[in-house]
C-alpha cells in the first residue's frame, strides 16, 4: 500500500483543501501560533508534560476491548475504543489539554472557545481551571437552552458562558462570535478550537493532539489480536475523533469509515452529511466541504446529535474523501437512536449520540461485514449521559406522532 503524502504543506493545504481564510488582523497571530506549535511539538519537556497530564489527569490510555455480545449478535468481532472513559466523558479533552498547555507556554492568560453541545466547552473550562486561566465560552442560544446541564458544568468550572443570539443560534454562530472575539482581543487571547476545522495550523494541531487515540488503539489492537482491524468506524461532525483514530492507521491496509449525520434523511435536506454532499466552500478559516446554497450562503445542519450538527467538516477529511483513502457514509437520527439502545443493552455502555452513529452503521452493514470476515474497531468517542434527556424527549415525540 502506497504511503500517504504528508499533509498539510507549509501553506496549511491538504491537497486543495485547508488554507487560512481569516481577517488580516489574525494573520500574524496564526503565524505566531504555527511557530509556537512547531517548537512545542519537538520539545521533549512539552511532550512529557502533556503525556503526564493525559495519564494522570485524563485517565489515559483508554481501554480497547472486544464487545462480545455485540460480536455474537452480528456474527463478526467488534471492538470498542473507549474514549467515553476519559475525564469529562469524551475525546475532546485530549485536544484542550494540549492547546491550553500551549496557551500557557505562549503566555496567553485568556482562553476562548466555541461549543455546540457543550462537550468542548466543558473540556476547555476544565483545562483552564487546571491551569488557573480565565475561560470564556461562546454557545448558541438554542444550544444553551438544549444543554442547560453543560452550561452549569462550565460555570461550576469557573468559565464565563456567552449565549450567541445571531444567525441560527447554534455552533456555526458560536464559532463566528468566538472568531469576532479573537479578532478584537488577539494580543492576549488564545482561541481553543474544538475540532479539526478552522484556519491552519488548527486542523493539523487538533489532529496531532487527537492522534493519541489511534496510536494507542493500534498498539492495543495488535497486542489483543496480533493484527490490525479490517475496518475503523468513527462518527464525523467537524471530524476530530475520527481523524484522531484514523491518523495512525493511514498507511495500513485498513478501511477507514467516517459516519456523518443524515438527520431526517439526506433526501429531506434536513441533515449534516457534508461530505456526502461534497460541495467545496470556505467557512471559519478553511476551504473544505460545506452545506450551502447556490450563492454560497451557509445552510443550517440538522442532527439529533448536537456534536454532529455542523454545516462544515475538517479539510483533512475532505482531502481523504477526495483521494479515496477514507469513505464516508451517513446514518439517520432514527438509526442512531436504535443503536443507542442496542449498545446499552448489549454491552452496558450508553454511547454518546455521536458515537451511536458509528455503531448504527456497523449494525446496518452486518451482512456485508460478516461476509468479508471483518474485524471492526469502533471509536466510541463519548458517553451518552449528556443525551439521555434529549433521547427521552425525542422518543416521547415519536410515540405521540406514531400514536
Amino acid at each position, binding site marked *: 500500500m502506497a504511503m500517504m503524502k504528508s499533509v498539510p504543506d507549509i501553506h496549511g493545504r491538504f491537497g486543495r483543501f485547508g488554507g487560512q481564510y481569516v481577517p*488580516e*488582523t489574525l494573520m500574524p497571530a496564526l503565524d505566531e501560533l504555527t511557530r509556537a506549535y512547531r517548537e512545542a511539538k519537538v520539545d521533549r519537556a512539552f511532550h512529557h508534560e502533556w503525556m503526564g497530564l493525559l495519564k494522570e489527569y485524563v485517565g489515559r490510555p483508554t481501554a480497547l476491548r472486544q464487545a462480545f455480545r455485540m460480536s455474537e449478535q452480528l456474527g463478526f468481532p467488534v471492538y470498542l475504543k473507549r474514549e467515553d472513559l476519559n475525564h469529562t466523558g469524551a475525546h475532546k479533552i485530549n485536544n484542550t489539554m494540549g492547546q491550553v498547555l500551549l496557551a500557557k507556554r505562549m503566555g496567553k492568560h485568556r482562553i476562548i472557545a466555541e461549543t455546540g453541545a457543550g462537550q468542548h466547552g466543558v473540556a476547555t473550562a476544565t483545562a483552564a481551571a487546571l491551569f488557573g486561566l480565565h475561560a470564556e465560552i461562546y454557545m448558541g442560544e438554542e444550544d444553551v437552552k438544549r444543554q442547560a446541564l453543560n452550561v452549569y458544568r462550565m460555570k461550576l468550572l469557573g468559565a464565563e458562558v456567552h449565549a450567541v443570539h445571531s*444567525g441560527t443560534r447554534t455552533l*456555526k454562530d458560536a464559532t*463566528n462570535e468566538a*472568531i469576532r472575539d479573537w479578532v478584537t*482581543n488577539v494580543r492576549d487571547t488564545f482561541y481553543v478550537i474544538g475540532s479539526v476545522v478552522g484556519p491552519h495550523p488548527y486542523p493539523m494541531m487538533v489532529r496531532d493532539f487527537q492522534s493519541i487515540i489511534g496510536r494507542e488503539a493500534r498498539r492495543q489492537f495488535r497486542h489483543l489480536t496480533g493484527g490490525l482491524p479490517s475496518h475503523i468506524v468513527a462518527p464525523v461532525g467537524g471530524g476530530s475523533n475520527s481523524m484522531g483514530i484514523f491518523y495512525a492507521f493511514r498507511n495500513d491496509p485498513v478501511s477507514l469509515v467516517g459516519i456523518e449525520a443524515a438527520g431526517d434523511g439526506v433526501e429531506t435536506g434536513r441533515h449534516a452529511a457534508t461530505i456526502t454532499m461534497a460541495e467545496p466552500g470556505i467557512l*471559519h478559516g478553511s476551504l473544505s466541504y460545506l452545506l450551502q446554497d447556490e450563492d*454560497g450562503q451557509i445552510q443550517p445542519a440538522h442532527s439529533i446529535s448536537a456534536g454532529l450538527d455542523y454545516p462544515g467538516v475538517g479539510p483533512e477529511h475532505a482531502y481523504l474523501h477526495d483521494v479515496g483513502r477514507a469513505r464516508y457514509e451517513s446514518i439517520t437520527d432514527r438509526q442512531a437512536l436504535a443503536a443507542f439502545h442496542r449498545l446499552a443493552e448489549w454491552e452496558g455502555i450508553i454511547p454518546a449520540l455521536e458515537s451511536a452513529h458509528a455503531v448504527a452503521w456497523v449494525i446496518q452493514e452486518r451482512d456485508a461485514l460478516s461476509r468479508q470476515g471483518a474485524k471492526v474497531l469502533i471509536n466510541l468517542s463519548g458517553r451518552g449521559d449528556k443525551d439521555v434527556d434529549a433521547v427521552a424527549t425525542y422518543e416521547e415525540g415519536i410515540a405521540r406522532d406514531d400514536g
Partner: protein
Amino acid sequence: MTANTAIRNAFERARHEHRAALIPYITAGYPSLDHLEPLVQALEAGGADLIEIGVPFSDPLADGPILQQAATEALAAGVKVQQILDRVAALRVSVPLVFLTYVNPIYRRGIERFIEDSHRSGIQGLIVPDWPWVEMREAAKVSKRHRVAMIPFVAPTSTDAHLHNIRSAEGFVYTVSVTGVTGARTHLDQGVGGLVARIREQVKIPIAVGFGISTPEQARETGKVADGVIVGSALVKVIRDHPDNPIEAAQAFVGSFRNALETK
C-alpha cells in the same frame, strides 16, 4: 493598460480639494433591494467619492451587530447575488463602486466568474475581509485582467512583511483602525496615525481608514492622516433608525461627514 483609473481619479479629485475621500458603505438588499438605487444616488448627492456596496453573506465574521443584522434581513428577504449584479449594472452613478463581501459567495460562483460579472456590472474593486492577501494569488491575476482591484487590508497587528507584499496592490489600502469587527465606537485607537505612516513607507496607492468611524468629528480627525475615510455601520444604523425616510437621512448623514472633511 492601468487598472481602476476610476478609483485613482476619485482619490485624486479629493486630494486636489485638500481633503480625504469619503467612502460610505451600504448593504445591498437593506432595507430592500429597491432601496439600492435611491440610496446610492443619495450617497453621491451627499458627497461620497466612492461607494462600497455590501453583498450580504450568512456568516459575516468581520462584522459587528449592525451589519450582521442588515445582512441577515437582506438574506431573509431572499436577496440573491445575481439580483444585486443586475441592479448595480443598471445604476446611474458617476463615482466608482466597489463590492464588499466574503470569500465563499465568490468561491461558490467561481472566482473568475464573480470577478468578470462584477466588472460587467461596473464594479471597480472587491473588498473581502476573510480573504487574506497570501491566499489571493490566483484571484489577483484574474482581477488584473478584468481591471477589478483586489483591495488589501492592513490591521494594527500587520507585519512589515505584509506591507511589503501588498506593494503590488491596486485601488487603495483598507486600513482597519482597531483590532476588532465593524461597528461604531466612541474612541478610536490613538495609533492610526502611526499605522498610516508605516503603510506609506511601503505602499504608493491611497490609504483609507475604516472600522469604528461614527461621527463627523472622528472622520475629520482621521481625514487629517488618511487619504480616505470609510463609514459603514454608523450609516447603516442611520438607515435602520429612519424607516420612514432612509434616503433623506442617509444623504444628510453623509453630507455632514463631507462637510467635516472639508473643514480644516
